[in-house]
């Protein structure tokens, strides 16, 4: 079957604050952007609840997906005539970059935790199922959707192609670091991407970087490190995520108890019952979720309405740093006291760990699972980055875990009811901090 797509008569461009312009010359890419499943990404924020901490962080998966596509377009342009890169893969690379996040749901991270869904599985379903995206991709050839789905699932036979979109330094990470830094307004997420792309060289299984470009790669690693601590791991964002997860848990629990909602949560029903279809899934976006949160503020259930009010009015939980190995013995007492003052500890006393977050640091090769970043030495040898760079070596392998205990401080400081118990809770919580 021959492709029904060629090149556009005239190049289309999107103005973009990170890459200046995003260039589209392929009919296929233009058609994909116009599908309803891709347009849905305009209604899903890239950073979930981070906008409650950094008010500029309103950018969406749509912006990011276009950005990843643009970076991939530049990578492919640079690599097209080099050994190891197969020019036949150009449109597979571009389509995969554009669609890599298409399965993300609203507030994806919390949703996946609560409902045990997986956005990668949904990406696959959207690409292979009865959708506009599938129909556009099949215009290339019958097996084209499967190729794109396999690249996104990292099971495509050409590992170089997979690594360009998913590795320790890839189009996805480069875009989200630059974009998240731009929209949050922080100054430390920047690095010289142009330079990185210039020194990138294709090899059989992954792209490597000329040694002369090491400092640009160092900058990228530092950016990733700082964004992790300053933005992705921000304790206020984590507090908002805690409340969001608890709202979803509570609503699901009420649904299972046949609670009568004032406004029937029809968008959630198949999700709550664990039988969500593709058709239902693509109808979910953050506008829908926030509509329900707005409505649930009026619900009779005091936990659901309180948590929704907290989320909508940004009355978040406070936290203390916590070392479970030292403080585990006071937890049973804390749990009992929360019960006594009438606040279910399952919703109002929540521990959040670093492993609950979807971001990671750069790690050198010891993991056995993920290819490290390799530098191409002048003599043609490959060397792992942290062995050559003192800066990267200094931040690799450092302690990067923590636990925070979240609770409603405003409730505990209100001494009109249960003053003794609340005082005791505050004392125990303060003793958590080492």
């Amino acid at each position, binding site marked *: 079957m021959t492709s029904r797509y060629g090149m556009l008569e005239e190049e289309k461009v999107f103005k973009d604050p990170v890459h200046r312009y995003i260039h589209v010359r392929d009919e296929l890419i233009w058609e994909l952007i116009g599908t309803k499943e891709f347009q849905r990404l305009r209604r899903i924020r890239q950073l979930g609840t981070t906008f409650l901490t950094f008010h500029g962080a309103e950018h969406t998966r749509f912006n990011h997906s276009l950005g990843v596509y643009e970076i991939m377009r530049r990578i492919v342009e640079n690599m097209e005539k080099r050994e190891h890169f197969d020019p036949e893969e150009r449109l597979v690379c571009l389509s995969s970059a554009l669609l890599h996040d298409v399965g993300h749901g609203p507030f994806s991270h919390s949703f996946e935790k609560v409902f045990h869904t997986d956005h990668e599985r949904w990406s696959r379903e959207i690409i292979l199922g009865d959708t506009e995206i599938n129909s556009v991709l099949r215009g290339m050839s019958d097996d084209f959707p499967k190729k794109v789905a396999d690249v996104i699932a990292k*099971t495509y*036979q050409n590992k170089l192609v997979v690594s360009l979109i998913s590795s320790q330094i890839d189009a996805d990470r480069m875009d989200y670091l630059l974009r998240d830094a731009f929209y949050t307004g922080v100054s430390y997420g920047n690095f010289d991407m142009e330079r990185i792309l210039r020194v990138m060289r294709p090899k059989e299984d992954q792209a490597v970087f000329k040694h002369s470009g090491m400092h640009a790669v160092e900058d990228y690693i530092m950016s990733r490190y700082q964004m992790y601590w300053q933005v992705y791991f921000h304790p206020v964002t984590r507090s908002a995520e805690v409340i969001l997860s608890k709202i979803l848990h509570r609503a699901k629990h009420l649904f299972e108890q046949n609670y009568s909602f004032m406004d029937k949560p029809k968008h959630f029903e198949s999700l709550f019952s664990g039988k969500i279809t593709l058709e239902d899934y693509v109808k979910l976006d953050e506008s829908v979720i926030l509509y329900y949160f707005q409505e649930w503020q009026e619900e009779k259930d005091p936990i659901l309405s309180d948590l929704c009010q907290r989320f909508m009015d940004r009355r978040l939980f406070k936290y203390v740093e916590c070392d479970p*190995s030292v403080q*585990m013995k006071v*937890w049973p007492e804390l749990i009992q006291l929360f019960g006594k003052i009438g606040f279910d500890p399952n919703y109002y006393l929540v521990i959040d760990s670093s492993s609950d977050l979807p971001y990671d640091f750069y790690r050198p090769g010891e993991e*056995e699972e*993920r*290819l490290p970043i390799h530098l191409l030495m002048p003599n043609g040898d490959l060397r792992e980055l942290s062995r050559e760079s003192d800066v990267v070596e200094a931040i690799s392998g450092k302690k*990067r*875990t923590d636990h925070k205990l979240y609770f409603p401080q405003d409730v505990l400081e209100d001494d009109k009811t249960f003053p003794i118990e609340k005082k005791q809770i505050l004392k125990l919580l303060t003793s958590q901090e080492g």
Partner: protein
Amino acid sequence: MLQEHCKLLAVLKETGEIVGRKKLQKLIYIAKKLEFPFFEKYQFHMFGPYSEELNLRVEEMCHLMFVEEVKEKKAGYYQYRYTLSQKGDEFLQLSDYELPKTKEILNEINSKSSKFLELVSTVLYFEDLTRKEVEEKVFTLKAKQNYTIEDITEAYEFIENLRKQTISAVM
């Protein structure tokens, strides 16, 4: 609180010791595919399904000294041994968490080599595909491991056997 951590501590208690990060990764993945309540998110990586979340969770428990990690130098690579520490056991008891009946199954998985578990988890990852397609995936994505048709047959038999045991364990 920290229920997902407790599950991993319980696994270490049931198995006594797990040798190798790869084995730990594959063991939890296989248990998850057998419908045991593990919720770590997995993606396909170099050696099959791999969970960064699990990796970090284990690291957290090492920092908390709930888990003892011993690093051993082998020919050309490092190997890690994991056991439950006394502190970890104490935490597990305080949390009152109990895994479903998994002891025999976990030990059976743990008795196999990492290389075999890599194959088993890869077969499970692609279980929606036909046998022929799975073979094709194994031979292209895992070319360096030189798995044979017989190895794949053994992996399928192992999975079937585990599933039977799982059903009888929950009945």
